């Protein structure tokens, strides 16, 4: 995937390989979310080009879980299958094994109001996964969670992606989260965002990234 844009973002040039996990870190308002919206095909760039993105190939998970309060966790998770034409029963049957595999077996029938923030976020992630797209775009997926739940979900997300490999772009303002979840980390500057640092997470330290973030 390749793109280069201007405006809110100034000169972001980036290629992501299949099944690669890339984290993008940047200060608030650096255009991180804009970047994901562009990739997802929800907005069109004013300049530059994106290939391999768009609504057909990308599934976007926003920071808010946006679960539908009248649907059970399972029915929220399988909604993309229903939208694609599967019956409610088919969709449930297909989604249930995933719920069981990823620690939600006891919660499938609960309504979102009965779930904790962490559980709701897991359901939202499975909903994104079940959109069956090659590319996952995660926009600060754990931004609204407390530190302990956040830590727990980071491990959970890593495991889930090992089991269901996808190309992943995750946006965050948390350097530790980026190092933990990305094979590659990209640091954006303040608006208009441009790439100030691009490193392999295995050979990089948080101090190095913090330094780059400070500019």
């Amino acid at each position: 995937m390749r793109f280069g844009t201007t405006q809110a973002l100034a000169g972001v040039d980036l290629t992501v390989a299949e099944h690669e996990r890339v984290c993008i870190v940047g200060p608030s308002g650096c255009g991180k979310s804009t970047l994901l919206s562009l990739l997802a095909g929800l907005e069109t760039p004013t300049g530059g080009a994106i290939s391999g993105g768009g609504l057909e190939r990308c599934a976007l998970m926003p920071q808010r879980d946006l679960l539908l309060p009248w649907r059970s966790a399972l029915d929220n998770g399988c909604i993309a299958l229903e939208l694609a034409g599967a019956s409610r029963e088919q969709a449930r049957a297909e989604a249930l094994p995933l719920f069981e595999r990823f620690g939600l077996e006891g919660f499938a029938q609960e309504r979102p109001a009965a779930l904790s923030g962490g559980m709701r976020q897991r359901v939202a992630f499975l909903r994104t996964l079940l959109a069956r797209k090659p590319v996952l775009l995660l926009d600060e997926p754990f931004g609204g969670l407390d530190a302990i739940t956040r830590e727990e979900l980071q491990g959970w997300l890593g495991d889930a992606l090992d089991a269901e490999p996808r190309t992943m772009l995750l946006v965050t303002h948390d350097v530790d989260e980026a190092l933990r979840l990305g094979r590659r980390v990209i640091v954006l500057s303040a608006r208009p965002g441009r790439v100030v640092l691009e490193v392999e997470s295995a050979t990089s330290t948080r101090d190095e990234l913090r330094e780059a973030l400070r500019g």
Partner: protein
Amino acid sequence: MRRFGWVVVLALFLIAWEAHVRLRDIPDYLLPSPSAIGQTLWDDRSTLGPEALVTGREMLAGYVLAIITGLGAAILLRLVPVLRDAVLPLLIGSQVIPIVAVAPILVIYLGFGIAPKVLIVALVCFFPISVNALDGFARVDPEYRRMMRTLRATPRQVFWRVELPFALPGVFSGARIAAPYAAIAALIAETAGGSGGLADSMHQQLDTPLIGAGVTLLAVLALALYAAVGLLERWLLPWATGDRGSGQ
């Protein structure tokens, strides 16, 4: 205990009213006392009871018709924006037409049976229901629409799966607002053309205790309708009324 606070308020009000009438020696034709109204309710129960049933049936039929057509019209106007732009201003304007003026005309068209009453009740209740539904459709958090778009939902799918369910609590609010309107509309409709409903008793201009008895029964009917809608909402939309627990 707090659920029955209204009983205390009502009791105090009735006691003050009764005392006012008795201590000042106010004649019945100016202001009937609650006890006189109560006496009439009991004495005339054999005529008032059937009358209340007739009025109640008109209210219920018109109300159900208003919910079906009000929600149906709102859905149609939402799905066909051209139609909404053409019709909505006229719909709002039509609300200034006094129902008192329309009722006799409808009686001429539809006769003295239940039909004009049902239609008048439906006409009055239609507006709060349809407008609340339209408002609800438009007010859905745009982030949900975005999310559904990334899941490849068509605009139709977004409407039926997100906008309509989110608007239903608003539809119920509109329906609750419309419940007392249904009672007033039924009475106006009956006044325009005989029916065997409560209006018959309440037309005895100088028998104020009888009018008071009719008003009391009308209030009971409106409250019953209001309460029934509340129960229906709790049953149909448990997610919106605070009940937790298992979904489908």
